[in-house]
């Protein structure tokens, strides 16, 4: 890190700046990786920029727009299509073709597809994986419930079972104040990951395949949204936004029976959870199975970087087999992007929770991509403005809400981008 030292030990090296966000554990890890890279590559010095998650999108766009972007950035896939379209990122296709150690077939196709724009490669996937459920094993046991992972193996882990389990794990004190909830969804406002798998499980979808109009008014999507709303407002098995404020109910605090999230939570939960047993299981099945969503972040190089070769070397290091093996197989920081690694016995067996690692593999194998394109944030804003009525309990009937949302989103999609 830059300091006012008299002699700069990094003089004469190619300076690279790398920017990312994440929880303290993730940040410590990436810092460590940068240091390791610097050691192994004496001609390059990578400095690591951590930007808070809430401001990350804003900061990255301001940097890209003001010619101050770092050489390498981690981009959430939500923002990737709209930024790549503006020409901010370097086309990596030629660098990848020239790199004899880079084989596209090693990777899950989903992990490569996310990085493509007009058939060209613009990034490498990291923090990739599908959404599944972390569950508090002890709480399930106390409530006399069947283990959801066992149920899933027998094909009996359905949304009905999920609902019953959530209700049974919800507890209140004598004054009626909730002390424990059946489940929670990350980020009180954006319950979207939960919704996506429910929509698909009931045969609905978000946009049509051409991504030109919304289809959330289908019976399947309405049923799914109705169910999610009822969990909160009829069953009260999930904290409301007010109850969730200031992180009063967290999975790690032992106050949620289940939580929907990506794989990245494992190291944190391993570190902070000591008071109960926990594990992972797939999302519940609906009449149309249990497809879940899978998403990653992209490591991209700024189109204005003056050191693209070194930046590529750094990206390759961050996504190398050794790194993946170290991070994903051993530390379980996240899911590997390489097929062979995910199916390796070493990955599937572990001595620390979670033990059901097959659930991670299944979630990716059984995944669908979200309809993310350059219009994503625009239509999501329109969509959320209606869906929020349901989530916040101002309206209880999903049908009208979704029909209004469809009209709004259709209008956004038909309009010129960026107005």
């Amino acid at each position, binding site marked *: 890190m830059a300091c006012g030292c008299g002699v700069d030990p990094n003089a004469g090296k190619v300076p690279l700046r790398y920017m990312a966000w994440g929880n303290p554990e993730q940040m410590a890890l990436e810092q460590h990786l940068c240091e390791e890279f610097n050691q192994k590559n004496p001609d390059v010095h990578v400095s690591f920029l951590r930007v808070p998650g809430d401001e990350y*999108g*804003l900061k990255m*766009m*301001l940097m890209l*727009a003001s010619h101050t972007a770092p050489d390498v950035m981690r981009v959430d896939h939500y923002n990737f299509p709209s930024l790549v379209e*503006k*020409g901010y990122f370097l086309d990596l296709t030629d660098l990848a073709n020239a790199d004899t150690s880079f084989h596209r077939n090693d990777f899950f196709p989903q992990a490569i597809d996310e990085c493509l724009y007009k058939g060209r490669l613009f990034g490498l996937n990291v923090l990739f994986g599908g959404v599944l459920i972390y569950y508090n094993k002890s709480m399930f046991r106390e409530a006399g419930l069947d283990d959801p992972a066992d149920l899933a193996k027998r094909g009996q882990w359905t949304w009905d079972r999920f609902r019953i389990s959530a209700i049974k794990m919800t507890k209140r004190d004598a004054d009626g*104040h909730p002390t424990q909830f059946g489940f929670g969804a990350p980020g009180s*406002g954006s319950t979207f990951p939960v919704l996506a798998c429910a929509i698909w499980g009931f045969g609905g979808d978000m946009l049509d395949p051409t991504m030109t109009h919304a289809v959330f008014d289908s019976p399947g999507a309405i049923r799914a949204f109705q169910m999610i709303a009822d969990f909160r407002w009829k069953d009260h098995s999930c904290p*409301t*936004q*007010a*109850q969730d*404020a*200031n992180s*009063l109910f967290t999975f790690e605090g032992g106050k949620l029976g289940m939580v929907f999230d990506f794989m990245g939570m494992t190291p944190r939960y391993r570190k902070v959870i000591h008071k109960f047993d926990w594990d992972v299981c797939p999302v519940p099945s609906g009449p149309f199975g249990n497809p879940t969503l899978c998403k990653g972040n992209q490591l991209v190089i700024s189109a204005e970087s003056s050191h693209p070769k070194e930046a590529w070397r750094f990206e390759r290091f961050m996504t190398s087999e050794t790194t993946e093996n170290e991070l994903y197989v051993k530390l379980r920081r996240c899911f590997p992007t390489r097929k062979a690694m995910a199916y390796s016995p070493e990955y599937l067996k572990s001595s620390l929770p979670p033990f059901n690692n097959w659930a991670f593999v299944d979630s990716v194998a059984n995944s669908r991509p979200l309809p993310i394109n350059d219009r994503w*944030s625009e239509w999501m804003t329109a969509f959320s*403005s209606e869906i*929020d*009525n349901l989530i*916040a309990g*101002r309206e209880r009937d999903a049908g009208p809400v979704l029909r209004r949302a469809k009209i709004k989103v259709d209008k956004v999609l038909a309009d010129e981008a*960026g*107005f």
Partner: protein
Amino acid sequence: MSVNRRKLTHQPGFWGFLFISPWLLGFLIFTAGPMIASFWLSFQKYDLVSIRYVGVENYRRLFQEDPLFWKSLKNTVFYALFSVPLGITGSLSIALLLNQNVRGQRIFRTCFYLPSLVPSVASALVWQWVFNADNGILNTTLRLIGITGPQWLQDERATPWAFIAMSLWGVGGARMVIFLAGLQGIPESYYEAAKLDGASSWKCFRKVTLPLLSPVMFFNLILGVIGSFQVFTSAYVMTGGGPNNASLFYALYLFRNAFNYFKLGKASAMAWILFTILLVLTLIQFKTSKRWVHYEGDDK
């Protein structure tokens, strides 16, 4: 005064210009120029990458097709409608109390000024907890007297009041000090003269204090209205505009359009609409001020 001035008039104007040139230069570069530029931008579609002339389309869309624009305007007007009068009354009351011949005036003044010393991000973080529905000090205190407080920052009906309440925490700040300075600038002899005429305290206040304080009041009112239309940091940090956009204030929505969505033409149009609104409000205040603002003999 005027005699001295006249003696100084033979000084070369050159020097005067030279001394004010830092401000003049800054004004031209950072205010006048950008004002023209942003007016021009408000007729363009611009995202820092490509620019295109679109006529009044930005304005048309804001007025006709953007419910959030109207919502943010409504929120802001509601906020201003309560926070400005309450704020001015509060500031004046504190200033009046402090202006009594009280012991420990400095300690009291510090206590009242303290909240204004708390930086806005820190204060937003503090109030986020004050307003916590279950465990916050506000609802905990209300519970002691048997009232169940609302979910201040999660219930859209309560949120605007939460912001108004929070703004009142700052009434002991600069505005109060300006009132206090104004009060202390009123010559004691005026009160003595009024007392000799047998005026009651209330009459003194109405006939002496209020008229002599009215220019200060006017100043605070104008700047208060303008300030209230620009609430940003507290909403950005505390609620991010929620719930259901109940705290989406005009400045926050403008900021989002400018620096989150890079709709710079639209944001410029919003800025000019804001400017027009404030200009009209200020002019109305100037017009009506003739009726209530008392000026001493002109000495310009």
